[in-house]
């Protein structure tokens, strides 16, 4: 019998909860470190919004590289549907579907990848390994490779709703990497157990199975990862030339096997995993330098995604454009870390995670009329133009009632993404339901929470509310403050002036953070001083057992906030100010209403 100490060791090891997956851990830690650095740089009013974009710079070079080349077709004839992903469960791999509504494609830095809980199980049970999905051009059917544990691959189809799974080619030829012809009439794949490793081609009903043999002296190795061109005229695949120790090149051929040519002719560079842009003008592929792109007719390569784009050593693989061409999607993976599907939007400078999964396929949704979904009809609030995504809160104006609004202007009768659209603040000072004055546009309305009505406190005690508007970030809120006047109706951002040069906050529009993260908190509160009411911004750095508190006192009159004091104190953490569920006695609205009352809660 082991000693009590050993028994305790064993019992504790068994009992200790495990972390929730190491997926993006290195990346998360890096982002957290940058966030802390940004908070320090920004001082007590280090705005959450600044912090959120701290990592964006890393990808600027990336975005530039991406933008200089030819861009995919601008008018999509196909929309993006669900994302089918292959996810590891212990030793097995099953396919899941992430529906369009659960795809966060407008995420700034810090977004989390959708996990299985956001997805529907498509197929897979027990020790099945269901991998390498490919969705038919009509979006109805998923082709995939099925392995019984470590067995060779067979080719299966299943309807996108999970019904009618059927095997169409058995495992004797060990199938990999299926790709649909653009008319949906054929599926090509790599057949590694057939001598000389040709590409296989079969009808979706399992008939007409045949092989395309490349009898070129140039090709020696297996023909891998085929991709059918959008116009159906050619197939690109990866294969090593026969000369010496040459590494894999990309090859292009007609589906009948004629017209074979070496697209890259780079014996010292290994090119694999080719994929077509939806407009057929270029081909992206994987090399040791990341994901690159070349024109479909051949030419010089351009890096789209460098090796380790998130700085954590994970390398990009398996590129594919979204069906509408708006996103280059790829998998980041490294040994021992969960693989994640990442997205690089066209024209954006930021890659971000979309979903768990080490293999994926987009479901194309052929256009059947208007691509965009009109937003629900909103009253135009007397503005003369349609608006959407309206949030509001009651305000007080010289002791009578009004309403403050935050809204997005519609574009062509549709509601743009908040990050793309024009977001404004408006006030109805008479209570007739019409907006009498607006201000904006608000610059940083981040998805998914966007800009919201935050609170309407009367911070200077003049009987009229000031209007606080928020944008939500990963760790809290950035808040703007606006001043309202009734006659004539006007709404103005409150501007900081610092006549004494105290320098604790920058002059310009008044913005402050509302955040309570590990080691740091910031917010604002009202107080009184000898010569009237003050509005005090606080920043708290908590270093057990004490807190460094930086305070900036403002006197607000009309649309001007004058810095009248700045101080620094060190207090026990329990006595440090904390943001809570109200601002100067006014309740928080919108998602911030859930902000905990940190000063009270234990």
């Amino acid at each position, binding site marked *: 019998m082991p000693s*009590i100490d050993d028994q305790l060791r064993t019992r504790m090891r068994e009992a200790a*909860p495990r*972390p929730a997956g*190491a997926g993006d851990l290195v990346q998360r*830690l890096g982002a957290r470190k940058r966030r802390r650095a940004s908070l320090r740089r920004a001082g007590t009013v280090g705005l959450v919004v600044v912090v959120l974009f701290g990592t964006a710079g890393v990808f600027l070079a990336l975005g530039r590289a991406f933008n200089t080349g030819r861009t995919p077709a601008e008018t999509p004839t196909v929309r993006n549907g669900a994302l089918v992903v292959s996810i590891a469960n212990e030793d097995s791999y099953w396919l899941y579907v992430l529906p369009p509504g659960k795809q966060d494609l407008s995420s700034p830095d810090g977004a989390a990848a959708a996990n299985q809980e956001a997805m529907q199980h498509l197929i897979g049970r027990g020790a099945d390994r269901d991998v390498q999905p490919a969705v038919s051009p009509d979006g109805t059917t998923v082709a995939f490779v099925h392995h019984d544990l470590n067995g060779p691959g067979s080719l299966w189809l299943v309807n996108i709703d999970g019904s009618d799974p059927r095997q169409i080619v058995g495992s004797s030829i060990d199938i990999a990497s299926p790709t649909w012809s653009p008319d949906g009439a054929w599926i090509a794949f790599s057949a590694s157990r057939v001598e000389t490793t040709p590409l296989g081609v079969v009808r979706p009903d399992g008939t007409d199975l045949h092989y395309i043999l490349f009898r070129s002296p140039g090709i020696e190795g297996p023909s891998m990862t085929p991709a059918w061109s959008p116009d159906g005229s050619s197939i690109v695949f990866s294969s090593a030339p026969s000369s010496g120790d040459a590494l894999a090149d990309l090859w292009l051929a007609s589906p009948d096997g004629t017209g074979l040519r070496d697209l890259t002719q780079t014996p010292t560079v290994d090119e694999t995993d080719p994929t077509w842009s939806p407009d057929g003008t270029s081909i992206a592929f994987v090399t040791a330098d990341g994901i690159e792109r070349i024109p479909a007719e051949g030419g010089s390569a351009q890096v789209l995604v460098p090796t380790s784009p998130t700085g954590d050593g994970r390398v990009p693989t398996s590129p594919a454009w979204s069906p509408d061409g708006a996103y280059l999607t790829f998998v980041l993976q490294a040994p021992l870390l969960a693989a994640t599907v990442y997205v690089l939007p066209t024209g954006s400078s930021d890659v971000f995670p979309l979903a768990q999964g080490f293999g994926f396929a987009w479901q194309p949704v052929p256009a059947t009329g208007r691509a965009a979904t009109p937003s629900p009809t909103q009253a135009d609030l007397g503005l003369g133009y349609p608006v959407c995504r309206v949030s509001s809160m009651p305000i007080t104006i010289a002791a009578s009632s009004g309403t403050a609004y935050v809204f997005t202007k519609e574009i062509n009768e549709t509601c743009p993404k908040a990050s793309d659209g024009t977001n404004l603040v408006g006030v109805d000072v008479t209570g007739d339901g019409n907006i009498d004055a607006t201000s904006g546009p608000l610059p940083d309305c981040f998805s998914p929470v966007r800009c919201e009505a935050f609170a309407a406190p009367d911070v200077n005690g003049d009987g009229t509310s000031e209007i606080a508007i928020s944008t939500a970030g990963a*760790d809290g809120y950035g808040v703007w403050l606006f001043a309202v006047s009734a006659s004539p109706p006007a709404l103005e951002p409150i501007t900081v002036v610092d006549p004494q040069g105290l320098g604790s906050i920058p002059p310009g529009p008044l913005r402050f953070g509302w955040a309570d993260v*590990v080691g740091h908190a910031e917010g604002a509160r009202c107080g009184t001083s000898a010569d009237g009411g003050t509005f005090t911004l606080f920043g708290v750095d908590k270093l057990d057992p004490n807190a460094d508190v930086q305070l900036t006192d403002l006197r607000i009159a009309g649309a001007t906030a004058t810095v009248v004091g700045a101080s620094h104190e060190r207090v026990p953490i329990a006595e440090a100010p904390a943001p809570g569920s109200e601002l100067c006695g006014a309740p928080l609205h919108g998602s911030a209403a859930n902000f905990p009352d*940190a000063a009270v809660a234990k």
Partner: protein
Amino acid sequence: MDEVELREFLRERYPRLVGAVALVTGDAASAEDAVQEAIVRAWERTERGEQIVALDRWVAAVAMNLSRSRLRRLRVERLARPRLVAAPPVQPSGDRIDVARALADLPRRQREVAVLRYLVDLSTEEIAKQMHTSEGTVKSQLSKARAHLAETLSLVEDNDEENSHAEHR
């Protein structure tokens, strides 16, 4: 700390440290948060040229300290709303619940000492150093914790020679 070290640390020590803090606080999500924060602080320090002699010990202690913050729980709850990837459901097991309950009965300090000793494998000397207390105090807390855990978990004393050696390493 370079990336290779960090990755190795995350692979080798991170799960154990999260488990340790979670056993002390009873909350796996906030434990992860505390350990991550501690690692980031260690990372920052090494970039400033400070040397952290025993990273494991340092991170364990800082994470334990951080996890005391009453605000952490609030933050985790709030952030869980839009951002955090949900933790996979944990299979509840009788054993796990027993150990967690037995630990929960202990005063916080004893709980920390027991977990640092048995789960993180720190010596009593290392624990004392990190808690800025004497080794004698740690030993007495450990002995109390050990007695309580053994009784609550019905562990039978057998070959207990380790108790007189290992605790002094």
